[in-house]
Structure formats: structure tokens, C-alpha cells
């Protein structure tokens, strides 16, 4: 049997017969009840959310596609080049005064050249097909999510986001391990690897003290239509030359600031080229999430520990971010941590403290109709409560 690690909203089967005496300290068990209640409602709004969340996956689809496109282009160019040189070869032979034997030799060499091209073409098309498969696997993965497997799918998504982060920060080993651990090899998460690592190698551990720096960039990333373009935009960078079309050596008149600037420029151009976001996905989602969760209450001492913003590190990150905004009241029962709505309306104690009907009913049933306010210690009768109408 398998026991899944705790996942968001995965608490599906909580035994309904947990009869817990309600006290203020039962956060854990009551949160369980809340989670169980939340999963009962899985209706269309969940699906709409799903659709919205898939719309955020642009990079996921675009990156392998850019790969695919690049291969197609490169293959086409090499075919075009060879064919046109064979044709001009034929014209040359026709125009020259070769002896018959020489002409035949020439033509034969052209034929073998074409044979070579054919083999190359086959190889190229295999690569193309492989990359097409990769694109399709990602499309299929996005299509595979439904209400049943959503928690697992979300889990995978978090892993994808983390792999993206690892690669961008050049934590290569972790990225590989994480990708392997998640049984999603099909998705080839590491497609990003070849792309991102070199760009990051710039930022980490590069010697900053040399008078001249040689920046070697694998042309693998740069044989975009006009690689030079990306460098010409950078001041102080001179393209010394290109060797065998596989390396560009860029010499920079060195100054630390220029170096940072160059790294930045490179990253930007690089991300743009491959349709990747400039920032790690993790940062983007973290920011949005923290803003959405951030309320003034989060920074108070009695903040529930289920709230990520009860933690120092999360609070620190959220500090410069805006607070969330709500158009409608959302009331959470202090005791059960459940949402108070029309089915579980809020009731007011004589001292103005508000709890959910469910919690108060349970408390009064267990205590002969008496209610004890968990925050002030006030004891009152269940009959003294009044309903509050929150619109």
C-alpha cells in the first residue's frame, strides 16, 4: 500500500465520526474537518480554475517547441546549402573542359555528396520527430488533468516549478534528482538544462578579477537566426571571431559593472528567445500567492500555523508585497477554522465575540447548554446568542 505525502486538498476521506471535544487547541483536528469539507465541493468552479491555471503554462509548451523549430530550421538550411552547392557543381562541370573521365569523376563525387546529405537528412528528421514527441507529451500532460487526479497533478506542477528554479540557479544535480523522483520523465523536464545552465554559469563562480574576460558561449543557444545581433547590442563586447561555428568568443573590456550588465542582457535575450519568463516561475507564483494570502492578520501572534505567513521566512518575502483585496467578507470561525456562511452562520456572544453555529452548538451540547468563550473565558447560555447577518 502507499501513503501519499500530505497534499493540498488531498484530505479526502476523514472519518466523519471523529467526535472531538472542541477546545481552542484542536487546530489540527479541526483543520482536518475543514479540509474534508472543502473537498466535498468539487464542482464546476474547480474546473474553471483548472482551465485558468493551464493558461499559465505558456513556457511549458513554448520551450520545447522553440527547440523543435530550431532543429527544423537548421536541417533545412543544411539541405539547402548542400543542394545548391551540388547544382553549382554541376554547372561548373558543364562549363569546364573536363575530359569525359574527369567529368564522370566529378559527377560521381557529387552523387556521393548527395548520398551523405540523405543520411544526414534522415538523422535530422529523427531528431525532429523526437522533439515533436516531446512537445506532444507536454500537451498531453496538460490535457491529462481532471478532478480526480488533480492533487497529484498539482504535486507534479510544484515539482516542475522547482526544477525550473534549480536549473535557472544552476543547481543541476538537484534538478536531475527532482525530475527523476517525480516519475515524469516523459515530460523531459530537463529540456531546459542545456539551455539554462550556460547562462547561469556566468553568474556563479566566475572570476571577476581578470582584466580581460573571455566569455565562451556555446553556439547551441545562439545559432538563432542572427546570433550576432544579440551581442552587438552589448556595449564593450567585441566578437573576436567564431571558430567552426561552434563557439563565439566574446572579449569584454572588463569592469565589474559591465560584467553584471552583460550577464543581465544575456539572460534577458536568452529568455526572450526561448519564450521563458525572465524570473524563475517559482518567484512569480510565490509572489502572487503571498499577495493573495497576505492580510494584516497574518502578522499577528495568534496567526494559525496553517497559514504560510505565520512563518518568518514567508513573512520576510511578503513584506514588500501588496495586501490581498476582498470585495466580500470572509469569516473564519476561530474555533473550527471553518468558513462561516449561510449554512454555518456566525453567532454573537454577549461580549461581541463571534463563532460559527456549528462550533457553538457542539460546545453547548457537551456542556449542558453553556458556552465558554475561548478567548475571554466568558460563560453564557446558548440562548443568549444572537445571529449576525454578514452580507
Amino acid at each position, binding site marked *: *500500500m502507499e*501513503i501519499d*505525502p*500530505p*497534499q493540498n486538498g488531498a484530505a479526502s476521506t476523514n472519518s466523519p465520526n471523529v467526535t*472531538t471535544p472542541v477546545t481552542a*487547541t484542536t487546530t*489540527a483536528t479541526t483543520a482536518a474537518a*475543514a479540509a474534508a469539507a*472543502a473537498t466535498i465541493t468539487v464542482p464546476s468552479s474547480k474546473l474553471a*480554475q483548472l*482551465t*485558468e*491555471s*493551464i493558461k*499559465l503554462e505558456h*513556457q511549458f509548451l513554448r520551450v520545447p*517547441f522553440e527547440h523543435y*523549430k530550431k532543429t527544423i530550421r537548421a536541417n533545412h538550411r543544411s539541405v539547402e546549402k548542400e*543542394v545548391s552547392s551540388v547544382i553549382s557543381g*554541376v554547372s561548373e*562541370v*558543364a562549363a569546364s573542359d573536363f*575530359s569525359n573521365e574527369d*567529368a*564522370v569523376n566529378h*559527377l*560521381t563525387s557529387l552523387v556521393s555528396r548527395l*548520398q551523405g546529405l540523405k543520411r544526414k537528412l534522415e538523422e535530422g528528421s529523427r531528431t*525532429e520527430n523526437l522533439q515533436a514527441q516531446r512537445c506532444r507529451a507536454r500537451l498531453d500532460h496538460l*490535457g491529462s488533468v481532471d478532478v480526480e487526479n488533480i492533487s497529484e497533478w*498539482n504535486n507534479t506542477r510544484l515539482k516542475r516549478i522547482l526544477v525550473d528554479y534549480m536549473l535557472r540557479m544552476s*543547481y543541476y544535480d538537484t534538478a536531475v534528482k*527532482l525530475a527523476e*523522483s517525480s516519475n515524469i520523465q516523459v515530460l523531459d523536464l530537463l529540456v531546459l538544462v542545456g539551455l539554462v545552465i550556460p547562462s547561469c554559469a556566468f553568474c556563479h563562480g566566475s572570476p571577476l578579477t581578470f582584466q580581460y574576460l573571455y566569455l565562451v558561449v556555446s553556439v547551441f543557444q545562439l545559432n538563432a537566426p542572427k546570433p550576432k545581433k544579440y551581442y552587438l547590442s552589448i556595449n564593450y563586447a567585441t566578437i573576436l571571431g567564431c571558430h567552426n561555428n561552434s563557439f563565439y568568443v566574446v572579449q569584454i573590456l572588463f569592469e565589474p559593472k559591465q560584467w553584471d550588465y552583460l550577464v543581465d542582457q544575456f539572460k534577458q535575450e536568452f529568455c526572450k528567445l526561448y519564450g521563458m519568463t525572465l*524570473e524563475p516561475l517559482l*518567484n*512569480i507564483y*510565490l509572489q*502572487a500567492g*503571498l*499577495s493573495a*494570502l497576505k492580510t494584516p492578520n*497574518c502578522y499577528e501572534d495568534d496567526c*494559525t500555523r496553517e*497559514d504560510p505567513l505565520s512563518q518568518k*521566512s514567508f513573512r520576510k518575502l511578503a513584506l514588500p508585497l*501588496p*495586501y490581498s*483585496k*476582498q470585495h466580500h467578507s470572509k*469569516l*473564519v470561525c*476561530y474555533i473550527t477554522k471553518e468558513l462561516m456562511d449561510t449554512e454555518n452562520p456566525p453567532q454573537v456572544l454577549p461580549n*461581541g*465575540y*463571534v463563532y460559527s453555529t456549528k462550533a457553538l452548538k457542539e460546545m453547548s451540547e457537551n456542556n449542558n447548554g453553556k458556552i465558554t468563550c475561548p478567548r475571554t473565558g466568558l460563560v453564557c447560555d446558548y440562548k443568549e446568542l*444572537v445571529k*449576525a*447577518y454578514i452580507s
Partner: protein
Amino acid sequence: MELNAIKDVFDHVTKKQKVSTSTSQEVIEDIVQEIQNAIDSIKACPDSQLGCKSVLSELKRKLQEIAPLSQLEDAQKELNVALSKYLKVLDKSLWPDISKAYRHVEFDTHTINQIIASHFYRQGLFDIGDCFINESGETESDAASMRLLFSEMYQILEAMKGLNLEPALNWVAANSDKLEGNGSDLQLKLHSLQFVEILQNGCKNQALNYARTNFASFSAKHMAEIQKLMTCLLWAGKLDRCPYPEIMTTTNWHTTAEELTRQFCNFLGQSYESPLSVTIAAGIQGLPPLLKFMTLMTAKSQEWQSMKQLPVPVDLDKDFQFHSVFVCPVSKDQSTDENPPMLMTCGHVLCKQTINKMSKNSTKTFKCPYCPCGDIDAMQCRQLHF
């Protein structure tokens, strides 16, 4: 959903790619054929220089006729159209740049790395966590303590996966006071799992002994549960036919493991869900409305960088509601300490400022905006604490 449309466009791309490849192959094949023919005819009359010339010019003419380059180009053009169409469809149906709603603030890498490391450990991914700590150089970390805290829990859970309840039972025994204080019946749940396990192995006496030693202390609160289990003794060896098949389902193991995780996290002072998972999940729900806003309000994107509050409401699921937020239905302001929610005599709630305004600073009575109730006295409104 649109995904199917995207797939269709992609299928078109692959189709064109295959066409382009086969065109290239054909073109090459044709040229080879022509050159081969020429070679053959030159070889056929080895001595005729003139013949050779005419063969060569014939070859040249034929190659022109095939027009290999324009053939290649045509195929490529079609492919290019398909490629750019796919990109357009992607741009149109998905958010092309989700960093649009990103605020450019320094996000401390060290803090993020700590969060990630803690996340790995608390999810039980110890290998990956160690690897990450190593690679990121975050050696002095809070995450290390997280590793210690959670390694015991995952040992227990790991053992449970192997149907070994002993570590779990030891743990609950050591923490039974606290568990009781929480009102958790985890202990009984674990004991009954163990009991059923023994019974399934067919040892009736052993099971009876086990029940005697372990169930006694729960008899006050959970008699019904225990009676059920004891009845099962009669079905020893044929448990599959017993009247309470639910005691044998594997979901029991799941729920018990879940409850154990919950209690364990609770004792550690940790949340049940990984805070990183929660935040990212909230981000995924919160991002679309923000992106919509940014697209509609490009003029405001400058202001966005300094806003104190999000410009649009972001509705998260119930799972993310950790705090009460009261929004005055009249002024639409969120309540604060200075502007608390007030309960009117009719039971409706407004914020203090609104009530002050409506009562002209408590100088006169007013009518509730939500019900026919008139004559509301501001002095009789009570402050609420959620």
C-alpha cells in the same frame, strides 16, 4: 477546452514537417537520379567529347526543370506558416508572459532556498533536500532542524507502508497524554489496525490478548468501536465475511497515516501542509485575475510596483482562508482596529465609520440599509470580534 485546438494546430505543424522532409528527400533523390543518368550516358560513349558536353548541358537543363531550391523553399514556407501559426495560437490561448504581474522587488535567494530545503525535508524527500543544501551552499540553515524533526515522522510512515505499526505505536504511547488532550483517537485507530492485522493472520487468542491489554483504556469513550472489533473475533480466519467489512479496508491505513501526520506536525508546531505548496497553490489561483488586470490596465502598470493593496479582488478557495476578513457592505472597506465591524440591533453588520456617517456621529437614529428595521441607535451597536 482550447487545448484540443492547440493540439490540432500542432498536428498540422508535424504534418508539414513530414511533408517538408519527404520533399527534401524526393528532391535529393531526383537530382541523384539525373546525375546518375548523365554519368551512365557519358560512360556509354566514352570517346565523344561532344556527346559529353551535350549530356552535361542536358543535365543542367533538367536540374533547372526540377528547380530543387524553389521546391525546398516552397515546402519550407508552408512549414514556416504552420510554425508561426502555432506560436500565435499559444500566445492567444495562454498567457504569453506570466511575469507581467511580477513586482520587481529583491527576493532574497537565501530565504527562498531555505524555504525550498524545508519543503523537501517536510515532504520526506531527504535525499533531494541534502543534495540541494549541498549544491546551494546553504549549510547553516533552519532547514537542518527541519530534517531532524521530520525524519522520525517519515520513518514511522515508511514502516506503516510496510504494514509495520510498531514505530507508530511507540510514538503514540510516548505522546498519549498530549493526544488525549487534543481529543485525538489516533491511539485507538492504530491499535485497531494492529488488532485486525493480528486477526487476519488468524491468531484468535493473540488478538484477544492484544485487545485485553490495549483496548481497556479506551472503553469509556469508544465502546461502540471496540464492540465492533470484538465481534470480529468470531470471524477469525474468515474476516472477509464479517459484518463490518469497513474495518479491513486499506483506506483505514490511509486515514490513520494522515491523522498521524497531522498530529505529528501539530506537536512539532508545523503546519499540516507544506507552506510552500500552499503558497504556490494560492499563487496559481491568484495569478489569473492579476494578469487580467494588468492586461486591461496597462496604464497602471507603473503604479502596480508600489501599490499597498492588490488592485483587484483575488478570490481563493476555502482552503486558503486562514483569517476572517470583514468588508463593510456599504463602504467596501476592510475592517481595521480603528474601524471595527459593528453589530446593529437588527443583526446586520456594518463598519464603525459607516455607522458614524449614517447616524451623523450618533446624533440621530437611522435605518438599516439591509432590512426594514428603522430607528437604529448607534449607541446600541456592538463591536464584533471575529
